């Protein structure tokens, strides 16, 4: 005997009605499982934002308003966020605020909006960090373990990006006299720069996979230790760039 919708339409209708009710009932509970916190703070003359997260994604964007907006989506409803306005700027320390949870803070995903002139200092134990269009003095992104770092349109005089496992992508400009450090344990470090960029580079990869791309100049650069290190100048050589990768690639692209 064949059973089909056309044979006996009544049970099918009942089943679909039950599923619909279940979906309607369970959807809010999924939404309630995460907690959303949103706060706004006035931005001072020299805006500095510090965030120390445990796990989760951090996204920093710029806007034209003179304030800092913090939006956090927390997996663990017991986790707390206690931003502090100090003389140095706005500080959020999730590690310090949640010591009582014994390491079970869960993922907290941050979206930060701040003025382009801001300095940002971001840190997490694992998770991704994205920084877009920040042009303050400092941009620092540090992932203690695994996670990708993406910096787009960054034009700061001091940039530090480091992780152990994950890729680092930088698309921005190097300021003359600035300091730039990129470091990964196992991941690809990619730098996309305008042709006019001038810098002194020390790039080290123990697996000998360094590609200077269009910035390679055999008269002004030299290979050391069987090609595991490249050092030399590009353009005016006024910015200092240090790149270290234990087991991954280093590659340069022209924008």
């Amino acid at each position: 005997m064949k059973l089909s919708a056309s044979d006996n339409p009544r049970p099918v209708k009942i089943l679909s009605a039950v599923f619909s009710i279940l979906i309607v009932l369970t959807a809010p509970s999924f939404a309630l499982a995460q907690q959303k916190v949103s706060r706004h703070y006035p931005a001072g003359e020299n805006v500095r934002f510090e965030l120390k997260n445990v796990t989760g994604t951090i996204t920093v964007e710029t806007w034209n308003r003179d304030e800092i907006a913090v939006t956090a989506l927390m997996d663990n409803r017991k986790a707390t966020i206690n931003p502090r306005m100090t003389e140095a700027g706005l500080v959020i320390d999730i590690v310090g605020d949640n010591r009582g949870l014994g390491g079970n803070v869960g993922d907290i995903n941050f979206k930060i909006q701040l003025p382009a002139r801001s300095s940002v200092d971001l840190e997490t134990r694992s998770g991704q960090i994205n920084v877009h269009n920040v042009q303050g003095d400092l941009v620092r992104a540090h992932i203690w373990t695994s996670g990708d770092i993406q910096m787009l349109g960054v034009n700061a005089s001091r940039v530090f990006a480091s992780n152990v496992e994950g890729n680092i992508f930088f698309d921005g400009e190097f300021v003359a006299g600035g300091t730039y450090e990129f470091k990964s344990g196992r991941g690809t470090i990619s730098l996309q720069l305008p042709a006019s960029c001038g810098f002194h580079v020390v790039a080290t990869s123990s697996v000998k996979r360094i590609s200077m791309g269009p910035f390679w100049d055999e008269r002004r650069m030299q290979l050391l230790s069987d090609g595991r290190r490249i050092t030399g100048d590009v353009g005016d050589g006024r910015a200092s760039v240090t790149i270290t990768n234990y087991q991954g690639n280093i590659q340069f692209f022209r924008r």
Partner: protein
Amino acid sequence: MNCEKYQMLLSDFVDGTLTAEDCARLELHLGSCPDCTDTGNDLRMIVDFCRGQRGQYEPPPNERAMWLRISNLIEAEQGPLNQLQPAAEPGWLFRLMHRSWQVSFPQLASIVGTVVVVVALGTGFGVRELVKTAVAPPAPNKPQALPDERHRQQQEMIAYWNQRVDLNKARWSQQMRDTFDRNVGVIDAAVDDSMKQLKVNPHDPVSEDILNDALNDKVALLKEFSDY
């Protein structure tokens, strides 16, 4: 003779039993030493007082029994202390520091002269050795002690922080444990790779830099996760 020895003669001096020669030397010293003069005057006052009060106090009915009781009490108090700590002679440094010294001007001048000569000779030799060391090139094929020492210290720190991490690790989620172990593995691989390179080429600066960086990274990572 110094003050200590002169003061040992004071008791006989006050009793009037000192030889004429010692008496003369002591009187000469007392004329120039106010400390010994004060001590001598104090002793003389005590002796004079005792002599003046002789016969005014009745002796106790059983003097010998009283002394025995006092003696027993003292022995009882000192007994446990003596069992614990065998009587030790004071050390030479203690004796030296607690000794009162009195030297004549020629003696003092000769001591100062000796010290000056010894310091000058020592400084001369030291400067010569320093110049020699600065000029001489590093001995070939001799491993540099500084990086080895630094790596040893880093390994000690790693062992310490590793213990701290292990204490807390059980509380972590499985995902965090896996992530942490995987990342430590990445750093360890960099350390191993650098060590291998350094065995082939002990003076490779890149391997040395990576080894140092990787060990520092590991210490920092363990430290960060030690209170997680």
